[in-house]
C-alpha cells in the first residue's frame, strides 16, 4: 500500500517534471531563433539593405513574404538578419556586466571592507538614478552608436549583478566547506573562483537569463530612441522606429513584425530564466 502510494507520487513528480510545455516550447523557440541568427544570410531571400523604390510599403506577397518597408526593403530578410544584432548586443552587454559584476560581488562578499562599502554606495545611487538617464548620459559623452549603448548598459547592469552575486556569495561563504578548504591550505582566489563560484552558478544562471531578456528590451528601446543601432541596420528596435511612419498610412507590418519578434524572444527568455532558477535552485 505504502509502496504503491509512494510509487504513484514519484511517477506524478516525474510526469510533472517532464510535462512542462511552456518551458519546452520557449526553449525550442529560442533554439530556432539562434539557428536563424547563425544562418540568416543563407535564409534571407534579399540583402537586408536592398532598396527598391518601386515596391514601397508593399503588402505581403509570394515575392515579399512579410511585405516591404518605406524604402521597399524586404521585411522578412530584414527580420532574419536583424536577429544577429538584436541578440549579440544583449549577449555582449551581459557578458561584460557579468564579468565585472560577479568579480565585484565576490570580492565584496569575501573581503567586506571598502569594496563592500563602495559597492553599496554605487548600487544605492544606481537604484535611485533612472537607468535610462544614466545610459543617455554615457551616450552623450561618448557619442551614439550600438557599442556605446552596449557599454553604457553593461556599466548600468554590473552593479545590479554585483549586488545579487554578493547576496548569494554571502550565504555560500557561510557554509563550513569553505572553512574546510581554508584548512586545506587553498588560497582565497582558488576557493572563491574554483570552488565557491561553481556552487553559485545554478542560482546565478536563471537570474542572468532573465537579465538577458531585460537587456534585449533596453537595447531595442535605445535603438528605437535613436541612441543605439543606426541605419541601415535592421536591429529590431530600429525597425520598429523606422516602420512607424507606415502606421498612419495603414501599413502595420513594418512596426508590428519586429515588435512581436522582440516581445516573443523576451517572453521566451523570461520563461526559461524563471524555470531554470526553480529547477537549479531546487537541486542545489
Amino acid at each position, binding site marked *: 500500500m505504502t509502496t504503491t502510494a509512494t510509487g504513484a507520487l514519484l511517477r506524478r513528480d516525474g510526469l510533472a517534471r517532464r510535462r512542462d510545455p511552456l518551458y519546452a516550447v520557449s526553449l525550442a523557440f529560442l533554439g530556432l531563433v539562434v539557428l536563424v541568427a547563425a544562418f540568416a544570410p543563407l535564409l534571407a531571400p534579399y540583402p537586408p539593405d536592398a532598396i527598391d523604390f518601386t515596391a514601397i510599403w508593399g503588402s505581403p506577397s509570394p515575392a515579399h513574404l512579410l511585405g516591404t518597408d518605406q524604402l521597399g526593403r524586404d521585411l522578412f530578410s530584414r527580420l532574419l538578419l536583424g536577429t544577429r544584432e538584436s541578440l549579440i548586443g544583449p549577449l555582449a552587454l551581459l557578458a561584460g556586466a557579468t564579468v565585472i559584476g560577479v568579480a565585484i560581488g565576490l570580492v565584496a562578499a569575501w573581503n567586506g571592507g571598502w569594496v563592500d562599502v563602495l559597492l553599496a554606495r554605487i548600487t544605492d545611487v544606481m537604484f535611485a538614478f533612472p537607468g535610462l538617464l544614466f545610459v543617455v548620459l554615457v551616450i552623450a559623452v561618448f557619442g551614439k552608436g550600438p557599442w556605446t549603448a552596449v557599454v553604457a548598459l553593461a556599466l548600468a547592469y554590473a552593479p545590479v549583478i554585483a549586488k545579487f552575486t554578493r547576496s548569494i556569495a554571502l550565504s555560500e561563504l557561510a557554509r563550513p566547506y569553505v572553512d574546510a578548504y581554508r*584548512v586545506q591550505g587553498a588560497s582565497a582566489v582558488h576557493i572563491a573562483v574554483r570552488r565557491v563560484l561553481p*556552487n553559485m552558478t545554478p542560482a546565478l544562471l536563471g537570474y542572468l537569463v532573465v537579465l538577458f531578456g531585460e537587456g534585449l528590451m533596453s537595447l531595442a528601446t535605445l535603438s528605437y530612441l535613436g541612441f543605439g543601432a543606426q541605419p541601415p541596420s535592421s536591429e529590431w528596435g530600429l525597425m520598429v522606429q523606422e516602420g512607424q511612419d507606415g502606421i498612419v498610412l495603414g501599413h502595420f507590418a513594418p512596426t508590428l513584425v519586429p515588435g512581436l519578434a522582440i516581445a516573443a524572444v523576451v517572453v521566451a527568455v523570461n520563461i526559461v530564466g524563471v524555470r531554470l532558477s526553480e529547477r537549479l535552485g531546487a537541486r542545489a
Partner: protein
Amino acid sequence: MSTPETASATAFAPAPGPALVEAAGLRRAFRMPKGQDPVVAANDVSFRIAAGEVLGLVGESGSGKSTIARMLVGLERADAGSLRIAGADRFAPARGRAARLARARQAQMVFQDPYGSLDRRLSVQQALVAAMRLHGLADREGARRRAGELLDRVRLTVEQGALRPHQLSGGQRQRVAIARALAVSPTLLVLDEAVSALDVSVQAQILELVDEIRRDEGIAVLFVSHDLAVVDEIADRVLVLYRGDVVEEGAASAVFRAPEHPYTRLLVSSVPGPGWDPHEVIARRREFDAAR
C-alpha cells in the same frame, strides 16, 4: 559506557618524549556591540598533545571549545599565547603558497556538520584527489590510487567513492571528511563535535576509526565534544574548559570517575542517566554559578 573495541583507547599510553602539539597561554576575546563587555572565549589555555595521543576537550556550550579548535587549524587568531605543532610556530607570519600548504599539513580538521562541510559539487573521489593535487602530493594517477587507499582506510567502497555528498548518510559523510583530512597526511587531527550529529551506533564506528588512525598513523588528535561518554571512550587525557579557562586536566579515567574541580563534578553528575532530574541539574548549576 565503554565498548570492547575501544577498550584499547584507555589502555593506550602516549609515547614519551617531546609533544607534537604545544599550546601555551592561548587567549581570545571577542568584541561585543558597544557597551557590552567582550566575551573571553579562551582566557589562558595551555596543553600538550603527544604523537598518537587523543586529547579530549570538554565543557558546556559556549565554554570556548570551538574557538580553541579553530585556533589550532588557523581559522581563528589568538590575542596572546603560543602554539607549536611539530616544532613549527603556528603564529609566525606565513607568506606564500608553500608556507600555507606546509601549515595545512600540520593540522587538519573534521567539522561538526557532515552535510555542510563537504563541497556538494565534488564526488568523494574528486574531493580526495583535489586535496592531494593541491598539495602536489601525487600526479593524477598516483592521487587516484591513494584516494582508493584512503577510501579503504575509512571503510568506504570504491562505488561510494563515485557518489556525491547528498547521496551519502551522515556517518558516511564524516568518513569522507576524515579521509579528506588524512589525504594531506597531517600531524594533528582536530575533530570539533565530529560525531555529535550522528546516532549512537554510527558514533561508535567513527570513534573506532579515529582510534585506529591515531594508533596506526601516530598522529595527535584533539577531540572536542560536549558528550562526556564519547570523550571518555576515545580520549587518553581530558581538558575541562569552563568559560575559557582550563579548570581540570588529567587522564580520562581519573577525570570522569574522580573529578576534582567542582565544575567537573557538576558536568559529570549532569549527564543524563537513571534517576536523572533536569530540575536538580539546573538548581545545582545555579548554585555553582552563585558560588563563583
